[in-house]
């Protein structure tokens, strides 16, 4: 199987659709078969995320300490079970330190299209319910929404609501950063409201295989098996260059086909850069071992006396002091006479994907006459562990926020009384357009993941978890009515205002 540029991922492409039909046709015909879905068909047949209904109950002492939390989460899953209630139930209270917690998830069979994974599947809806309730509870106990969350935030050593004990985590630091962010102090005008909310995602590691091949000219070809959906080739090239101590422009990452690499799990669970960088580092270190051996051979000295520094073999020890360093390029050029091609490989299960947390702030203005909303300002604070390619990490934060804002405000599958989807197209399924959004500020926190050599955590999914709640809290604060239904489209807001 060869990899293609697949466009955005977001989980929806981790499922098999009608590909087996194309395969069968191709076998029959003895010719290539191309499967094309129209946008209409993608909307109708590839599967949206679940529609949900969630009940949350949280109890706190007057001093603001949460003592118990309970949630019942119902996720629609079309005609098949095996969908997403579990991740919703597991993530719902993951931000908080709770002695007593219960979550019950249901998968509800409905006469609707099957559902599919969508970026941190099931977590955003759970966070919408929980973070809305947290805001209400903070008001009840008379505490600031941020302070209330800081008081109850999980920390290193806390047993998470879904079982494991947390290592070093970022929920507290993102909340502290939000508390001190200038956004929180900016004045608001008439009909404007500010909301904030937290979010959690597990992240995933999985089976990963990478080849790092060194050409005779000293350039690096990095063969990766996680399909690039957001710039991971650039990030992984940076990692390879960093390990080898060479210039980024000498590394070229390619997404290899299945006959060129060992098995790779698909690009899901925010694992692309996390797991493939882990394998790239390991492959580079294996290559460096070989490079040192070749240099030792070229110099005729023991390999123990050869170090690898800044892209060069360096002879160590008093007896070799005057040997000029051997750059990677020279070792590569000589490889034909020193033992053949030089490459590093890595096959691993990338265990220990660090969990990640984010806290978002949203300012919104509501037109009380029409129910229309305008996002005025938006800030994302998220723990990346280590941001390998900071601009792409910011892009993941901003993109997740934008998708979440769309979901919160106007994105909706509208079914007729006949059960058919009525808005199967980009004109009436209203994802945000450029003029709907402000700039999205980001703050990257780096609390290293102890299980990754550089401290990397997945970053792609966490950013969509808080926005539904952050926007809902902002709208609720703007209009003085608790918004319990998304999307908060103009008719719903107007109805809430008049209720």
């Amino acid at each position, binding site marked *: 199987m060869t990899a293609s540029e697949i466009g955005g991922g977001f989980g929806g492409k981790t499922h098999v659709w009608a590909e087996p039909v194309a395969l069968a046709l191709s076998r029959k015909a003895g010719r290539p078969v191309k499967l094309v879905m129209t946008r209409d068909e993608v909307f109708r047949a590839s599967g949206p995320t679940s529609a949900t209904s969630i009940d949350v109950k949280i109890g706190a002492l007057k001093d603001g300490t949460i003592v118990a939390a309970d949630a019942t989460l119902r996720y629609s899953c079309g005609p098949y079970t095996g969908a997403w209630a579990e991740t919703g139930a597991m993530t719902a209270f993951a931000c908080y330190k709770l002695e007593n917690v219960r979550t019950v998830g249901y998968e509800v069979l409905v006469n609707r299209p099957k559902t599919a994974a969508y970026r941190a599947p099931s977590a955003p809806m759970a966070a919408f319910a929980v973070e809305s309730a947290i805001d209400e509870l903070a008001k009840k106990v008379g505490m600031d929404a941020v302070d209330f969350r800081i008081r109850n935030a999980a920390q290193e050593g806390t047993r998470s609501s879904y079982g494991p004990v947390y290592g070093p985590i970022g929920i507290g630091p993102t909340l502290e950063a939000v508390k001190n962010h200038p956004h929180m102090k900016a004045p608001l005008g008439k009909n404007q409201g500010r909301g904030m909310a937290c979010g959690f995602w597990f992240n995933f590691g999985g089976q990963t295989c990478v080849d790092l091949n060194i050409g005779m000219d000293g350039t690096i070809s990095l063969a990766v098996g996680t399909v690039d959906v957001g710039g991971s080739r650039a990030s992984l090239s940076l990692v390879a260059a960093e390990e080898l101590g060479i210039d980024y422009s000498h590394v070229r990452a390619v997404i290899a086909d299945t006959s060129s690499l060992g098995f790779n799990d698909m690009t899901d669970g925010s694992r692309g850069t996390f797991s493939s960088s882990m394998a790239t580092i390991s492959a580079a270190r294996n290559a460096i071992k070989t490079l040192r051996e070749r240099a030792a051979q070229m110099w005729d000295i023991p390999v123990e006396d050869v170090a690898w520094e800044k892209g060069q073999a360096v002879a160590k020890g008093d007896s070799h002091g005057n040997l000029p360093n051997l750059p990677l390029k020279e070792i590569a050029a000589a490889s034909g006479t020193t033992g053949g091609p030089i490459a590093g490989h890595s096959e691993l299960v990338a265990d220990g994907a660090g969990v990640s947390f984010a806290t978002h702030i949203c300012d919104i203005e509501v037109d009380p006459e029409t129910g229309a909303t305008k996002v005025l300002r938006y800030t994302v604070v998220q723990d990346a562990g280590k941001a390998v390619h900071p601009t792409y990490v910011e892009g993941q934060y901003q993109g997740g926020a934008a998708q979440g804002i769309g979901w919160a405000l106007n994105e909706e599958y509208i079914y007729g009384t006949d059960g058919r989807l009525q808005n199967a197209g980009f004109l009436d399924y209203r994802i945000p*357009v450029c*003029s709907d959004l402000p700039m999205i500020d980001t703050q990257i926190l780096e609390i290293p993941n102890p299980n990754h050599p550089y401290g990397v955590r997945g970053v792609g999914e966490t950013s969509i978890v808080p926005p539904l709640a952050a926007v809902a809290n902002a709208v609720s604060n703007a209009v003085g009515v608790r918004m319990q239904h998304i999307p908060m489209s103009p008719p719903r807001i107007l109805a809430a205002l008049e209720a």
Partner: protein
Amino acid sequence: MRYIRPSSLEDAIGLLAQATGKASILAGGSDLLVKMKGGFIEPDLIIDIKAIDALGHIRESDDGFVIGAAVPCAVLGENAALRRAWPGVVEGAKLIGSKQVQGRCTIVGNLCNASPAADSVPALVAAGAKALIRGPDGSRTVAVEMVPVGPGKTSLLPGEIIESILLDKRLPNSGDAYMRFTPRTEMDIAVVSAAIYLTLDDQGIVQFARVALGAAAPTVLVVEEAAEILIGSRVDDGTLERLAQACSAACRPIDDKRGTIEFRKKLRVCWPSGSRSPPINVQDRNDGRHSSFDDN
């Protein structure tokens, strides 16, 4: 399927009249190609009218403006004289789809697509625009609101083509405006929309008014009661309140994916508070929901 690009209107009418199967006129294509893509129509003959020189221009004369059927909406926005005279008409035309769509779509196409939510039609109706229709039996001129007769249906007879849209010269102390409500700022279809044309006397009292609503009924709705409320007034707050009530009472919207009856009846396309009436010039918009008004 055949594709023909005639160079004269006579040829186009001849082709249309003689067509044995389904023949479709292609101007901007932003409705036709979408319908073909969706399999809703499969024409046997496509008549591309863009090579007909007479249809490709906006002409200004002593009587007003003649806008050819093949003029893209973007060109309306680039015509300074038209923008000055009929800002509401231009506003409506420039709210259709995206920049990309506006580079192709035409107001005649928008009219003949006969969608109740067509953005360019309410302002044309309020402005008293006429359609010059040519057919095998000669030409006729009708008020634009006579063209759509229901969703997707027009009063055009077999073989007829709209050659152009005619707009009068703007009278002194007069102006027009168009506004719509959409959930998104751009790339959206009006949930409900409104266009207005007013003429004032020297004292600032409304002498003549026409109000048209979009997406409020199967075709664009001319609200006579609204005009009556405006005439004789200075468009003060009380008048506007009565105007809003009259419009809500007159509209007969439907529930669909873009809005509910209840929401559509409630929506008021708002006059920005603090603006001095009468509205005359629509500035370049920065927001699809509310146009800005200025005294001329």
